[in-house]
C-alpha cells in the first residue's frame, strides 16, 4: 500500500516514516547535485543563507534533461546520492530534513539523519520519464550557470518513492536484501 504524504517534512511526519514504506509525495522540493551542493556548503561556511529556506525542506538529487517544447521539464530521475554524502550532514544541520536519490549512503549520513530526524527517499533510478510526469511546476532559482545542475524549485504531485533510510536507523538496502536471502537462502 502506498501512503500519501504532503510536505513540508515536519519532524512528526519524518518520525512516522519507516524504511520500506512506499509513499506518494506531494509538495515543493529543491533540485541539487554535485556542483550545487558544493556551492551551498560554501555559502553556509561563509555565514550566508541558502537560496531557499532549508527548514523541513526536501532536496531531490537530480540533473534533469532539458524541457522539450510544451513540457516544463525533461526526464528527471534521481542521480547517485553517495556523491552528496560529503555535503549532506551540513545541509541537515541547516534544517534540510529530506533527501530523494538512489544508492548507498555513508554511515556518517545515517548518523546525521538520526541526529536531525531526517529521511532518505529512493526514486527509481532510470525512470526519468515516469518521474517527470509527477512534476507540475519547475522554476530555476539559483546557480543558472550550472545548467542541468542549477538549483530548481519543483512542485511534485504523488511522486512515487520508497523510504530507503529512516531517522530511526532503518535501512531498506540492508533489510530488503536480508529478508529476501532469509526466504531464498544465502548465495555465498
Amino acid at each position, binding site marked *: 500500500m502506498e501512503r500519501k504524504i504532503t510536505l513540508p517534512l515536519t519532524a512528526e511526519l519524518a518520525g512516522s516514516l519507516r524504511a520500506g514504506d512506499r509513499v506518494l509525495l506531494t509538495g515543493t522540493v529543491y533540485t541539487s547535485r554535485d556542483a550545487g551542493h558544493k556551492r551551498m556548503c560554501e555559502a553556509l561556511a561563509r555565514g550566508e543563507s541558502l537560496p531557499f529556506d532549508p527548514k523541513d525542506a526536501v532536496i531531490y538529487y*537530480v540533473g534533469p534533461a532539458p524541457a522539450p517544447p510544451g513540457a516544463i521539464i525533461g526526464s528527471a530521475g534521481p542521480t547517485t546520492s553517495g556523491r552528496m554524502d560529503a555535503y549532506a550532514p551540513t545541509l541537515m544541520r541547516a534544517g534540510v530534513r529530506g533527501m530523494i536519490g*538512489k*544508492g548507498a549512503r555513508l554511515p556518517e549520513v545515517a548518523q546525521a539523519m538520526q541526529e536531525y530526524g531526517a529521511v532518505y527517499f529512493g526514486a527509481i533510478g532510470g525512470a526519468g520519464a515516469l518521474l517527470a*510526469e509527477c512534476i507540475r511546476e519547475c522554476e530555476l532559482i539559483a546557480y543558472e550557470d*550550472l545548467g542541468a545542475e542549477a538549483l530548481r524549485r519543483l512542485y511534485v504531485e504523488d511522486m512515487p518513492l520508497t523510504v530507503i533510510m529512516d531517522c530511526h536507523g532503518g535501512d531498506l538496502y540492508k533489510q*530488503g*536484501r536480508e529478508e529476501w536471502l532469509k526466504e531464498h537462502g544465502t548465495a*555465498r
Partner: protein
Amino acid sequence: MIREIDSGQVTDLVEKLCIETNVYLPEDVREAIRKAREAEDWEIAAGILDRISENYELAEQRHMPICQDTGMACVFLEIGQDVHVTGGSLEEAVNEGVRRGYERGYLRKSVVADPVRRGNTGDNTPAMIYYDIVPGDIFRVTVAPKGFGSENMSAIRMFKPSAGLDGIRDFILETVENAGPNPCPPMIVGVGIGGTFDKAALLAKKALLRPVGSSNPDPFYADLEREMLGKINELGIGPQGFGGRTTALGLQIETMPTHIAGMPCAINISCHVTRHGSGEI
C-alpha cells in the same frame, strides 16, 4: 573500388542514433525485463520492474529520454578498408552528430572539458570514438550512450594466471556486490577477459553491445555466462537494491588472447537502461 562517403552522412546518422537510442529502449533489453518480471516472486521487486516498464513505454509515447542521464556518447565505427570519407574530418563529423543530436533531441549535456578542473562543454562532446578497420566497403555506426551511475561501479583487475577461473568468478561477484544499489539495478554486466589492460576494458564495453540474453559462441564462456548470471541473481540485491531476485538482466563475456604472464579482467557495469543502436551508410 573505393567507395566514397560524405562526412555529412556520418553526422546525420550519428545525430539520428543519439536521439533514437535515448528514447527507445532496445527490444532485447525490453524482453529481458519482461522475462525477469515473470520470474520475480518478490513483491517490492515486481513493483519496481512494473514501473521500469511503464517508464520506457512512457518515454516512447512522449518522445523523451528514458533516463535523464543521456550519457557520454560512445560511438563505434566499423569502417571498410575500401571506404574513403570525404568532406572533412571524420572525428569532427561524429562530434557534430552528437552536438546536433543532444541539442535537437533535448538530451542532457553531461560532459565536462577537464576531468579535474571540470566545466561543462555544453554540447555533450567529445564523443568516445572507437574505430575498427574491417575488410570490404561497409560503414557501420553504433551509438551507445553510457550513463555514469553504472560506469562508476565498473572495475578492472590484472590477475596472475594462477588465479584461474575462480579468480574471475569471485571478481565478478565482488564487483556486483560492491556496486549494490548504485548502478540502478537490475544491471547488465559486461566482462572482458584477456588482451592488455586497455583492451580488456574495451572488450567489457563491447560485451554490453551484444544483445542481452545472447550467448558467447564458445560453449566454455557461454556456460560461464549462465553460471555467473545465476550466481548474481542469488545475491538478493534486487531491482534498485530493495531486495529481490532480479539483480542482473544479463551478463556477457568477451575474450581475446593475452600474455603468458597475465589474465586481465575488466567488468563494465550497465543499468536497466542499456542503450545501443546501429545504422549503415
